[in-house]
């Protein structure tokens, strides 16, 4: 195929990316450095004002927590899925993939029903006698962490599943024949070989969690803002565009930098590949 034809076929892609992706982001960055005057003040505010510095730290900590929880919950599921056959495999696979393609809003709404004062979790806890009166679950950072873990779990399971599935059963059998305990097999064979999947899933979950908007906005407490909710507040209520742009700038630069550093571990095709 001629170079001209290749370029022609690629041009709509490059055009829409330039127009709807690169330009708007560049414009935001530009504003963050130039308004009200050519300045770094907007960025200085993000870092030096203790309120905003705390929002940044809270966002990073929440993302770390969600990533850790997702590994703990996701790895065993991915392992089970990679060794399952037939109906079990189909059942587990459906449970993992279905949420991935169902609306984030639906899942967030479901958690807000569960976390309500008279919701299922509170009534369950009271029926079991664990608490005597309903706990305040909704509008807490805990609610945000649980719901975000729920939303992001498939992004952890699928890459780990991809790397575990590539490990032949013979390796595990060989380890067993050589007298390795289950834990030793896990530590010496499964874990090292699945590390690329764990790294890819963790990075994907961590980076996505940093910019999460819907779930913290609906389930979080107004006193414990996360960065995306702060951005929305600055734009919708305070109308401070330059500062909001700086916040977005910090977030985007941080995420892009991490993604570039670890670009070798990120395997997006695994997400789709695992579905086939």
């Amino acid at each position, binding site marked *: 195929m001629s170079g001209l034809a290749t370029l022609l076929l690629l041009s709509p*892609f490059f055009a829409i990316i330039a127009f709807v992706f690169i330009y708007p982001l560049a414009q935001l960055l530009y504003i963050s450095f130039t308004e009200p005057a050519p300045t770094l003040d907007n960025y200085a505010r993000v870092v030096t004002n203790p309120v905003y510095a705390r929002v940044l730290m809270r966002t990073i900590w929440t993302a770390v927590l969600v990533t850790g929880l997702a590994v703990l919950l996701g790895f065993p599921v991915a392992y089970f899925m990679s060794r399952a056959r037939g109906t079990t495999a189909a059942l587990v696979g459906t449970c993992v993939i279905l949420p991935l393609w169902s609306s984030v809003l639906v899942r967030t709404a479901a958690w807000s*029903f*569960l976390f309500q004062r008279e919701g299922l979790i509170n009534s369950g806890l009271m029926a079991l006698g664990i608490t005597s009166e309903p706990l305040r679950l909704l509008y807490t950072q805990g609610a945000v962490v649980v719901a975000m873990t729920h939303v992001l779990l498939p992004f952890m399971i699928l890459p780990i599943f991809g790397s575990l599935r590539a490990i032949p059963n013979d390796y595990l059998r060989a380890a067993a024949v050589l007298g390795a305990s289950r834990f030793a097999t896990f530590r010496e064979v499964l874990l090292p070989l699945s590390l690329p999947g764990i790294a890819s899933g963790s990075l994907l979950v961590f980076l996505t969690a940093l910019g999460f908007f819907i779930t913290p906005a609906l389930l979080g407490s107004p006193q414990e803002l996360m960065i995306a909710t702060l951005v929305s507040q600055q734009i919708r209520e305070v109308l401070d565009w330059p500062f909001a742009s700086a916040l977005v700038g910090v977030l985007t630069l941080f995420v892009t930098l991490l993604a570039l550093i670890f670009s070798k571990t990120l395997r997006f095709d695994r997400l789709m590949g695992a579905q086939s």
Partner: protein
Amino acid sequence: MKPPVDKASLALGAYVYAVLAFIIIPLVIVIPMSFGTSDYLEFPPRGFTLKWYQEFFDSRQWRNATWLSAQVAFLTAISASIIGTAATYAMVRGRSSLATLFQILLIGPIIVPHIALAVGLYLFFQSIGLSGTVPGFVLAHTILALPFVVFTTASALGKVDANLEAAAMSCGASRFNAFRLITLPLILPNVISGALFAFIISFDEPVVSFFLSGVRYKTLPRRMFEDIEQNLTPIIPAIATLLIVLSIAILAIAFLMRSRAKA
């Protein structure tokens, strides 16, 4: 050979099914709640009614939001699959020096936080009058759907032998005709399933739509967001149930397409 069942396997199984319950229960729970008769959300629901579904379909606001989202999702599916398939074909068949750039730009919309894109587009579209318009939503959603279309199409295109097209062209077909008559039919199931993914990505997209929605034109997710934020009524479980049914249907069709392609 089946390994013997022991305590460790049982514990692993129990743990895995507990996690699967954690994944599935929040999705399943909204279904019975949507049929409850009381005006506030309760579980287990008392009685059985379809009034929340009726309220949804009777409400002009919800109908308009659904119609807007459906239009946008349909156009997004078309534009993302055309742009995505063309680009994928060029990348797979052409020896392009742009490969690295293409990959970085493709992954960009997945990596960059949606809130950043949403805010950037809000500002930009406001200045050129695209905010809250169908073309504005379609452009934004196409960006988000493109990576998924490309991944799905590329996996099929990689398996089609380039010699088939060479043969067609040596028999006098133009490259376009060779693509249209030989390659496209072979990759069509994946192109369609990519388009279906693009449809559902757009139909459900909440963050960009949150900022791009005007006062009059609000997508379904934007209306849902407001309803959840302000007054949580059983109409939300009813809509959630409809959306879950829609995702299951679309996923099922997409997988059927792709498994048929493999057979």
